């Protein structure tokens, strides 16, 4: 119940920001604060950009989250603790190059559009998930593992029925961080020519079109909050379904 309530604030914020991104609302706010408005982005175009943005972000999330989770589980099967120290070092080092820098570096090598964004997400988002997964699985007490082995569980059953449920909290939290990161990185991807909600922001900054700037910023933030709310609600729903 409290988990579902956590989704309420981002949901309301997301709806309010989405309303602000509509051309009429944003135009009214900007004129009311005495700024020159510029050409609006039509609502239909904004919705199309939002769909593109979400598709790109979800693809990147699936890539970074899926790979990070899989590698994290594999790492705990094989090498265990010795790998964890190197993982932490690697994860810290990977944070030194922010997504926008990775996108910029990838641009001349793999070209315009979605690929550099996906690469940036894979590079920047994979390590935190992997590190979070390894760290969360390490918190499962050895006694529990031994008890599961004594009950005759196979390694696969132990992973699915014992370890993952016990470690689910931190893992889901790490995935949530990467989802939010994916939405933010897809916005920056507009710099590499990807058509996302970052596009009106970049164009607005270049042409000093405050209206497009505000619409893009509000819509991108709305999408991030709605994705966050969706994730929290889904986790709460899953939690309730499993408890029943």
């Amino acid at each position: 119940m409290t988990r579902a309530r956590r989704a309420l604030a981002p949901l309301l914020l997301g709806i309010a920001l989405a309303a602000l991104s509509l051309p009429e609302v944003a135009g009214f706010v900007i004129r009311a604060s005495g700024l020159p408005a510029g050409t609006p982005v039509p609502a239909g175009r904004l919705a199309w950009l939002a769909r593109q943005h979400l598709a790109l972000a979800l693809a990147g999330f699936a890539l970074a989250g899926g790979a990070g989770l899989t590698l994290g589980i594999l790492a705990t099967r094989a090498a265990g603790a010795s790998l964890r120290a190197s993982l932490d070092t690697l994860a810290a080092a990977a944070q030194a190059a922010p997504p926008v820098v990775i996108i910029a570096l990838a641009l001349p090598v793999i070209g315009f559009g979605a690929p550099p964004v996906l690469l940036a997400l894979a590079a920047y988002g994979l390590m935190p998930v992997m590190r979070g997964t390894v760290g969360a699985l390490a918190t499962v007490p050895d006694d529990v593992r031994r008890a599961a082995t004594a009950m005759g569980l196979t390694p696969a059953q132990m992973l699915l029925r014992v370890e993952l449920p016990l470690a689910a909290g931190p893992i889901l939290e790490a995935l949530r961080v990467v989802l939010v990161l994916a939405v933010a990185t897809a916005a920056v991807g507009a710099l590499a020519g990807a058509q996302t909600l970052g596009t009106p922001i970049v164009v607005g900054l270049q042409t000093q079109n405050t209206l497009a700037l505000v619409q893009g910023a509000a819509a991108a933030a709305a999408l991030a909050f709605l994705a966050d709310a969706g994730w929290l609600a889904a986790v709460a729903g899953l939690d309730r379904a499993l408890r029943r």
Partner: protein
Amino acid sequence: MKAHLLARPAAWLPPALAALAVAALAGLPFLALAPNRLVPGSPVGCGLLGAAAGALALLASGLLAGPARPWRSWAAVAAALAAWIALVVGAGQGAAGLLAGQPPAARAALGAGAWLAGLALAVLLAEAVRAVLPRRGGLVAALLLVGVTILAGRAGLLDALSLAVEYRAREQALATAFLQHLGLAGGALGLALAVSGPLALLHLRDGPAARFADGLLNGIQVVPALALFAGLVAGLSGLLALVPALRSLGLAAIGPTPAVIGTAAYLGLPLVRGLAAGLAAADPDVLAAARAMGLTPRQMLLRVRLPLGAPVLIGALRVAAVQSIGLATLGGLVGAGGLGAVVFEGMAQFAQDLILLGALPVIALALAVDAGLALLAGPGTDDAIRIQGETA
């Protein structure tokens, strides 16, 4: 137990790195010759020196793979360093050879093979140095790599490389951008610290105000950075239109103001969390003893909580400083200059060398600040941060 694990690197790592270097040198373009700075070049393989770099890498990994003896580790360090020197000099001399007889606009850029091999050799050297000096191995290796490369550059061995040509053309602008970047990142860190300090103190008594501030800082983390920077530009121009007197304070809608505020906004959460954890790090018994000795709350903070929590506090500062340097890159979009402006100019021109000249200093600066603050915090802090991250 842990020190032992760190001192003995994973046995498969050095051979894998050496194999990666050799494969990159043999299979990927080492250099690329292009008619000018904007078009992609035609690939060129590595020469004799590149091959020597690969062979030296294999030698170093072979020395590391054997039984641990001091002379073997030292020899591995020497071999890995020699491999790096061969790679760097080979790239510089190869570029000079390619450009001989070409028109002046022609550029010889480093190819994917040189970058990948360089990365593999750098990690290999770090592994070799770590076998000799378990604690500060990575730092010493980085200093060796950078020092040797700077020496080669000073000696004029790298002048023909496209990156060096681009650097010479923009030396002054890059130095300015670097200083601007430091100013943006440092200013944002200072602003974030000024706000986070009181909030962390508020955290010590867990009230509704602390929870509200927490929610706000959590919410900001969800907003895409690009959207927040853009929103700040729009919000500041609205504010300045309503209250023009603020302009006389040096506030502007475009420039460092939105960049510093936007960057600082993202630093709030890690700083408040880290500072609060650091202030709460002191053992309750110690606090009780201090109280029994008659220390005032102010004395408790300055003499007990701050010194005892120092490793965690510096750890939080470290995370925030690295993030600050990365986020300040976006300042280039809102007219604040800095290295981000160099990167975005390079992206607009599709000029790879210009992008690299902006991006490499950002990464180097972040790594240097991270290593410097880690040195300041002393050994064992990584564990403290990890534990804090798990409980957070």
